[in-house]
């Protein structure tokens, strides 16, 4: 059992790390001078400019 835990722990740690990279605390904003990217990489700006009243549905075509 201990051996199994010893083998599993590094795997779980590795998976946890990959999840962390998508956590919001790691988000970085674009700092260049392209106006399109200034907005489209900024979650807060986009949320303010494109509020959620007209969201699309899930993929389910004909």
């Amino acid at each position, binding site marked *: 059992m201990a051996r199994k835990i010893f083998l599993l722990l590094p795997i779980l740690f590795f998976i946890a790390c990959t*999840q962390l*990279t*998508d956590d919001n605390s*790691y*988000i*970085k*904003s*674009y700092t260049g001078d*392209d*106006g*399109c*990217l*200034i*907005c*489209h*990489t900024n*979650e807060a700006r*986009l*949320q303010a*400019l*494109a*509020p*959620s009243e*007209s*969201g*699309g*549905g*899930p*993929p*389910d*075509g*004909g």
Partner: protein
Amino acid sequence: MEPWEKVYIKLRAGQDVADIDSHLGRTACVDCHNGNNKEPNNKEKAHEGLIVDPSEYVDGTNSCGKAGCHESKVGDYKNSLHQQLWGEKRMVALRSGVNSFTQCPQTTQDGYNGECTDCHATCGQCHISIPNSAGGGFPKNGPIYNSHRFRKTPDMKNNCTACHGSRIAHDFYGDEEAGRKGDTHYLYAMDCMDCHSNVEMHSAVADKDNTHRYNYDHLPRCENCHSDIGTANNYHSIHLEKVSCFVCHAVSTPGGYNNCTGCHVAGEWKTDPEYQERNPEEDFKIGRNPLKSDSRPYDFVTLRHIPIVRTSYDNWGASGTLVDYDDYETWKYATPHSIQRWTSQTDTTGGKTCSEKCHITNGENSKLYLFEDYIQTNWPNEINANKDVVVDGHLPSWWSK
């Protein structure tokens, strides 16, 4: 997905847009999308002249086909079956009594181009975003944002079955809760692209007026993988040229196959209780092969009921234009994506023989087949159109209906 998420490019710590995809390092947004990248604080000015989908064809080309980019692929794809829906246009023309879509009444062409071509897949709708018909925007898988990543191989769920959802996805993925198993290829972790190649999707069609979905050089064939199938067992040896693979191996149990008219015909939908009451079947039927050829020599194939009636184009102002409606079957050649080795037709559990499960003996199994009286009862206006695909008079004489 929220509207802002559809256009959100997520950067992680230490990441630049070029790290998301090399295209984004080589070209600025405005190179393809136009707009004004000097106005980050004015949404209206920033989006002046915006091209939402630069891969939409304008004058025969698009942004992907610029010199030095994907000129050849874009040139071919412009005339492909997937982009132009030649097969569908061909049937619109034939039912209208002409040989080419461009000879159809203008009202029909306008109506078709206004409604049916919404489903055109541009380059971007397969390789960057979710197709427009499924809501659009960059795909998001759980918490992972795909941003504006260019994917050489489309994603089966976000792209292929986002459009081909109601029939293909329903059958192919199955539904454990509903007791549908899914296609065996899917269960073996195959995806659409394992059978439907890059060449099939992108190749230009030479004979635009005579090409349809099943008369096309690059279609997948079961034999491409299952090369020794003809001698695999006695059932195959006997049936191989008489019935298509689907006749035996497509799941036909209730709900196994989502026929077109399981949901809609002539503007009526499954949510309409009256239609639900009247529409008797969702399954495919076994009928005579309407596309008999050297490559499809089968006498019997699976057929699906398509939602076309004589008045389908009336709301386009094209009333009375389907002059040859009676000449083309409304139960069409079908290739259900619900393949299993053991189906209700082949499963001999309990000591029944294969023929007892499929051949019509003492009236049993007759529901599997397309008979004229079944059409007469449910869709009497389609009797003439289907006279060449019903099985009446074409089953072995020793079978009894």
